[in-house]
């Protein structure tokens, strides 16, 4: 991507975009009246949320026992799905912040969708720690607040780190997201009328696009990006430490942090592809989300897939090379034990399928990418399932070994979480410009009456 940054403005992939206000017209029309399909999907999502609610209700009333969880497998589908969504949440900020700092010119048209995905994914992930605890009515004890008992949470516990990491990540990425939308909301305001105009008026904070606004906006944006970048890396590192700081064979590995971050970006980018392909079709944004973008994302997928696969292999190698009996047994069980199928799904989806991305033809074929991205999403969910469940079911104490089978309630909640995510994302597509209008204008040719001034070749993106 570093190569892409040095390309002169305009060489980037919007050859057929010349007019600045054309961008407004194209993008803002996505905010028009939603069609039947949209309503159907929204209904579906609401139904799904209903299922989530009911399942959770049953669990709260009867007890956590309605899950398939048992000893020794104390964590299962819930934590799996939690990690999955946190992972998904990563590519958003990655694309908007890191690629921004790297001046990757292909980010502008996708980062809005990616960031929205991030925010909603964290919102989804945030549900699971609550769903997962045995006494949810006491879950607030994890938050450090002055109370009548003089009690504080235990800051040595990775779960408390999680609380901080995830909430921080949510706050920052939500802020980042909102900040980026302000100028576009203003644009929407100027185009809209009636109720929507009032709405946008409020949420665009009276943005006018004056030099002063833009000046500070740009700086703030850079600093936020600079802060968000380490945050992205830290959040999934912290999540990985939930496992790495434990002594469970299969969890207790130093490679976990980078391995999880790579995995997160991998799944995140795949999810961006999965989400943007339909948007592109439905809203006819081919001019904005061009094959060049997908090529770039595919490359990112390929890279991270290789990192992740390397991590898998190195884990197996370390298990063998350490000669540590328990470790070896755990990984043997992972490959050929009770959960072999999950492991092989993971290896195929995350290691083998992405190999196709080496071929340019595949990278430039939207349907192919869409299919692969689906595979990757499935594979990454199973990666977490494998890490959590297979490690726990085959630990130190042979007499205590046991297996875990997810229950209907868990499945209901897991599926419901996708509905919950979808619900917010659908709202987003109709309320907020899915492509960053203002920033996109930076990468289409500047309207010049005369010859462009000598110094007009500077990089875009720098606000």
């Amino acid at each position, binding site marked *: 991507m570093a190569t892409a940054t040095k390309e002169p403005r305009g060489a980037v992939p919007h050859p057929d975009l010349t007019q*600045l*206000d054309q961008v*407004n017209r194209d993008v803002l029309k996505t905010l028009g009246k939603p069609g039947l399909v949209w309503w159907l999907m929204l209904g579906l999502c609401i139904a799904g949320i209903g299922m989530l609610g009911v399942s959770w209700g049953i669990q709260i009333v009867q007890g956590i026992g309605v899950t398939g969880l048992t000893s020794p497998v104390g964590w299962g589908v819930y934590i799996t799905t939690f990690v999955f969504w946190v992972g998904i949440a990563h590519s958003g900020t990655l694309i908007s912040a890191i690629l921004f700092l790297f001046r990757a010119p292909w980010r502008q048209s996708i980062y809005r969708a990616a960031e929205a995905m991030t925010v909603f994914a964290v919102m989804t992930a945030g549900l699971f720690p609550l769903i997962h605890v045995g006494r949810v009515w006491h879950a607030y004890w994890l938050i*450090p607040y002055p109370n009548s008992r*003089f009690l*504080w949470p*235990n*800051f*040595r516990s990775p779960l*408390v*780190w999680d609380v*901080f*990491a995830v909430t*921080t990540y949510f*706050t*920052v990425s939500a*802020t980042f997201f909102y*900040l980026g939308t302000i*100028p576009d909301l203003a*644009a929407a305001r*100027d*185009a809209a009328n009636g109720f929507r105009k009032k709405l946008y008026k409020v949420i665009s*904070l*009276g*943005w*006018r*696009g*004056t*030099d*002063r*606004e*833009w*000046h*500070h906006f*740009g*700086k*703030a944006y850079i*600093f*936020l990006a*600079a*802060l*968000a970048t*380490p*945050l992205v890396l*830290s959040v999934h590192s*912290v999540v990985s*430490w939930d496992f790495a700081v434990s002594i469970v064979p299969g969890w207790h590995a130093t490679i976990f942090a980078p391995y999880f971050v790579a995995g997160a970006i991998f799944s995140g980018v795949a999810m961006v592809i999965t989400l943007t392909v339909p948007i592109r079709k439905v809203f006819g944004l081919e001019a904005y989300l061009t094959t060049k973008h997908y090529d770039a994302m595919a490359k990112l997928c390929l890279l991270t897939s290789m990192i992740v696969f390397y991590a898998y292999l190195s884990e197996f190698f370390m298990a063998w090379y350490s000669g540590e009996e328990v470790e070896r047994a755990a990984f043997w069980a992972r490959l050929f034990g009770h959960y072999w199928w999950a492991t092989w799904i993971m290896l195929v989806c995350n290691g083998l399928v992405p190999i196709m991305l080496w071929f340019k033809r595949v990278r430039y074929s939207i349907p192919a990418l869409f299919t692969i991205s689906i595979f990757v999403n499935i594979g990454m969910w199973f990666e977490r399932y494998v890490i959590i469940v297979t490690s726990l079911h085959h630990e130190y104490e042979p007499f205590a070994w046991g297996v875990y089978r997810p229950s209907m309630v868990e499945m209901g909640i897991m599926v419901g979480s996708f509905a919950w995510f979808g619900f917010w994302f659908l709202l987003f597509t109709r309320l907020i410009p899915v492509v960053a*209008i*203002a920033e996109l*204008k930076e990468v289409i040719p*500047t*309207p*010049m*009456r*005369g010859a*462009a*001034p000598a*110094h007009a070749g*500077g990089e875009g993106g*720098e606000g």
Partner: protein
Amino acid sequence: MSETKGILASYEYVDSAVNAIEKLRAGGLKKITAYMPYPEHLIEDALGYDQSPVRVWTLAGGLCGAAGGFAFTAFTSMDWPLVTGGKPILSMPAYVVISFEMMVLFGALSTIIGLFINSRLPYLKPMVVYDPEFSGGRFGVYITAPPERLDEARGILQGQDPVELREDSAGVAHAS
């Protein structure tokens, strides 16, 4: 300066706006507000901005967050000392995680505050001197000047043949 008047010109092209601004400034007319659909730094350069103070906010917020996070974790574990896993009451490495997260959080939040303060957001007054086109494709230059120099200013703006030229009797844009 109630008698001050303002003129708003909106341009199709960046360089028109840039030239207008440069000429105005050359003529000592400095009370300029530019409108852009996107951060066009040719214009910013023309207006001659230096570093934004927002970065100070970021730094301050970050430092406070980090320090606060560390102090808080340390305080809570000394407040009711309990040994877990044979670890020291003050398990510094664990607390680093918390203070890092706090640094990012407070850094980010204070950056936003800094931004809002510096760029006068949210903007609450009615948008008299504004053109919806500015969020679309046009570039606006708004100048306020004492009455005796108004014609000069108008001349310069006209010189870059604007799409539109609007007189503003109140000069609100610079009241903020």
